[in-house]
């Protein structure tokens, strides 16, 4: 009885995975997203090679210069090379965004699994926590937390985790509620498998796909959050290059050198576009037939 | 006799990523004024799509792929969207299977009944409301003034279906298309609704096309029947004659597979095999892979309906085999 249930669940999981391998290169959004993101990540990784100035090197004699051979995108208000700052900003922001997604993903998924599977007071309590956190506007809570904890990258991770676990919990809980009524779970339970095993081996692989898809778009949210914090002066601290700070610094020169604020913003939009396309493509691929 | 509706070689397609699914693949039938025609078949036979095609209410994924639909001299298959729209409701009305989903959940039922006369007949609000109450009385809804203010979810299944019938009658159409109107109702209510439909037909002289998979319901309601299989009409004729002495092996199979309380058997009789893949149907007679009487000449060719004597027609070229079989072992037709 247990073996049959295991086999059934295996089959369900394999179905998902097989679909993925088969079609990824034929899904336009996935390919487009991966290309865009891949290019940006590549540029960011190769930043030291592709740019030839130090992003924090000031040159007060050559401020606010336009594009030239040495400075393809000109210089900012402190004479720093825009192109280098753009690339290094990508490094910083992308790295922080990717890492920042992991903790909420892990914690949120775990809580969602438990709440969905065990139900009753576990679920009620979880819902209460979720509703309380959700009552705070995302940025308000992030900013308040960063203020309380102090600035710096480590505290950004903590703040995003405290605020971000909620979405994963909701998604996973929803999936679990549906999945736990399916035959393979009932069969596993009837077969006497322990709760831990059911959750880990049977529920998790089937409910996690939605969480993964969301994680992709969550990275977008995190990039926006980091950039916004940077704009407000609460994010990654200078002199490390960060797109948000670049936009903030450029705002004073909006009338004369509007490109200072515009270009980093475009970089954000393109990165976000790549990630969104990737997320859409992934959602398409992982959707059961 | 003039026909109110004549359908010739109707085709409805569902384009699919891998090919085309022929939901209706050359169906023909006709209806006279004042008559009730039943269309019977299993799910997948194309009967619902055929019905919907008549007024151009196919689902988005489907396409009218051919044939003629002549209603009062006008070919609806090639009519403009405007013409179709003008005919809907006023000349041809429709009743759907699931009244809970077929009624707008956020609009009061009285409003929904009155909408046709209000918008299309130019009635004033008051007159349309009065007409709605009148119709509700006609279909046997008690306390119409109160019920008119209700929402669909506040009414029982039987009441909802009565509302649907009231809507269908609201613009005094000549023809009502019924898509399994009683399938979703429980048996006692089903009976009430069928009796209501019969009495309305007698009162108002409206013609009806009644689609169902339930042979008993068709037998009770209709004078003539068309049997559909795999997107085609395989047999037509007066209900009594067709059910007592079917002239198509599929009709025979259908009749035999209706469980009868009075007839004790060890095994439930079914038609062997499975319904065909409508994207890639069998060659020749669609039914031949499952047919107990199939011969060599059933495997290839076209098998349109051919008239027999009286009002009957069949697509089967070996129909006497079916008739013989039923003479030997009569089917006690339900109903």
């Amino acid at each position, binding site marked *: 009885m247990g073996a049959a249930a295991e086999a059934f669940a295996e089959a369900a999981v394999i179905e998902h995975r097989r679909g993925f391998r088969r079609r990824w290169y034929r899904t336009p959004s996935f390919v487009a997203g991966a290309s865009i993101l891949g290019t940006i990540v590549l540029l960011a990784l190769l930043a030291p090679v592709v740019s030839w100035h130090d992003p924090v090197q000031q040159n007060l004699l050559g401020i606010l210069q336009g594009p030239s051979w040495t400075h393809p995108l000109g210089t900012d208000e402190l004479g720093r090379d825009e192109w280098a700052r753009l690339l290094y900003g990508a490094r910083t922001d992308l790295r922080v965004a990717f890492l920042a997604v992991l903790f909420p993903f892990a914690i949120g998924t775990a809580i969602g699994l438990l709440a969905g599977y065990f139900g009753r007071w576990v679920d009620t309590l979880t819902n209460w926590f979720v509703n309380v956190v959700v009552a705070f506007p995302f940025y308000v809570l992030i900013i308040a937390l960063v203020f309380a904890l102090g600035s710096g990258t480590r505290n950004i991770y903590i703040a995003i985790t405290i605020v971000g676990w909620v979405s994963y919990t909701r998604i996973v809980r929803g999936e679990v509620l549906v999945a736990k009524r399916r035959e393979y779970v009932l069969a596993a339970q009837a077969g006497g498998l322990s709760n831990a095993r059911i959750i880990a081996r049977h529920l998790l692989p089937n409910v996690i796909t939605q969480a993964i898809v969301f994680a992709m778009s969550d990275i977008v949210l995190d990039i926006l959050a980091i950039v916004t914090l940077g704009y407000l002066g609460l994010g990654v601290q200078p002199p490390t290059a960060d797109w948000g700070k670049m936009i903030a610094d450029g705002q004073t020169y909006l009338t004369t050198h509007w490109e200072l604020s515009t270009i980093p913003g475009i970089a954000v939009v393109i990165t976000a576009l790549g990630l969104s396309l990737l997320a859409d493509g992934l959602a398409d691929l992982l959707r059961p037939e | 006799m003039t026909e109110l509706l004549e359908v010739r070689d109707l085709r409805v397609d569902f384009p699919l990523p891998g090919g085309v699914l022929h939901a209706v693949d050359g169906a023909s039938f006709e209806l006279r004024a004042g008559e009730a025609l039943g269309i019977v078949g299993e799910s997948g036979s194309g009967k619902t799509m055929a019905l919907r095609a008549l007024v151009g209410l196919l689902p988005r994924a489907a396409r009218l792929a051919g044939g003629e639909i002549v209603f009062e001299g006008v070919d609806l298959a090639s009519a403009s969207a405007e013409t179709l729209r003008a005919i809907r409701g006023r000349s041809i009305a429709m009743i759907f299977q699931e009244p809970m989903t077929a009624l707008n*959940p956020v609009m009061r039922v009285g409003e929904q009944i009155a909408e046709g006369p209000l918008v299309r007949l130019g009635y004033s609000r008051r007159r349309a409301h009065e007409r709605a109450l009148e119709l509700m009385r006609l279909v046997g809804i008690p306390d119409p003034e109160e019920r008119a203010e209700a929402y669909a979810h506040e009414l029982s299944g039987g009441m909802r279906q009565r509302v649907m019938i009231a809507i269908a009658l609201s613009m005094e159409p000549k023809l009502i298309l019924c898509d399994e109107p009683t399938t979703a109702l429980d048996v006692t209510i089903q009976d009430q609704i069928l009796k209501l439909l019969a009495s309305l037909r007698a009162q108002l002289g409206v013609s009806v096309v009644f689609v169902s998979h339930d042979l008993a319901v068709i037998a009770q309601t209709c004078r003539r029947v068309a049997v559909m299989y795999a997107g085609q009409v395989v047999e037509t004729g007066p209900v009594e004659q067709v059910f007592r002495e079917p002239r198509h092996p599929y009709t025979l199979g259908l009749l035999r597979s209706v469980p009868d309380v009075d007839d004790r058997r060890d095994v439930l009789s079914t038609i062997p095999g499975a319904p065909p893949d409508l994207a890639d149907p069998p060659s020749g007679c669609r039914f031949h892979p499952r047919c107990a009487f199939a011969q060599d000449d059933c495997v290839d060719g076209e098998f349109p309906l051919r008239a027999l004597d009286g009002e009957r027609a069949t697509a089967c070229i070996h129909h006497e085999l079916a008739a013989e079989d039923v003479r030997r072992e009569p089917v006690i037709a339900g109903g």
Partner: protein
Amino acid sequence: MSLTGYVARRLIQIVPIVLGVTVLVFFLIHLVPGDPARTILGNHATPHKVALLHREWGLDKPLPVQYWRFLKRMVRGDLGSSLFYSVPAGRLVVQRLPPTLWLIGLGTLFSVLIAVPLAALAATKRDRLPDQIVRAVPLVGLGFPQFWLGIMLLLAFGLHLGRGFPVGGYGSGVLGHLHSMFLPALTVALAIAPILVRSLRASLLEVFESDYVTTARSKGLSERRVLVRHALRNAVISTVSVLGVNIGFLVGGTLIVEQVFALPGIGQLMINSIFERDFPVVQAVTLAFAIMVVLVYLLTDVVHALLDPRVRFD
């Protein structure tokens, strides 16, 4: 169940959430490294005052007791005094509330005005060019940092094309407010409109396939009437829910937009207070934001119930 019954029931349901919100706000100060009393007093800290606060707030007592005292103070309206302005934090928040409320209201209005026609266009012209464009926009649009969008709008309409709108400030009088609020409200609306458009379009497409739309068509009604009287009427219901769920995002957006356009609302108050390390005000504004979100969410729920008769009859 009547509407008032429904509202009353929902009000009772949010009480635990409001309490939870206060707990979280209470914990904020305990996250700050160091002595909470010193954090609150900032520059005004003297050993005497610190000791006083320790006693009053019970900072040596267990947390639940501290929380209880905090709650009692809150109910009295005492959220501490602003370190910068030397007025009660609560009063400061209330004073600065109107611009933020204007922004939220106008932003919501604009977002609906933008989303509904676009979604209707996309749904009725499904898979054709207008739909493709409408679907592509959220894809790109959701990647716009809201503050950057604001700056771009400022650049375009405030500084270059026509200089039609002021680059900051609140203006005076209703018309002045509307004038100054136009670009900020538009920024807020554009940030949330893609989500609404996506949701409403999906709802409409679903509704178009529904049986009651087929019934409506079978009455021979014009497509326009089917769209407005039947499809939209149903589709907006779920969109109101989506708006409610995303209201936190909308309200949070005002924080940033106020910063970009220099609007004297509570968002700007919060940012300034953060840089001045004025903890009582930060705490008060955080609380205010959460209460606002909860109330607005309740409001959207009520609107939902008004639009959907099925909801009240549980």
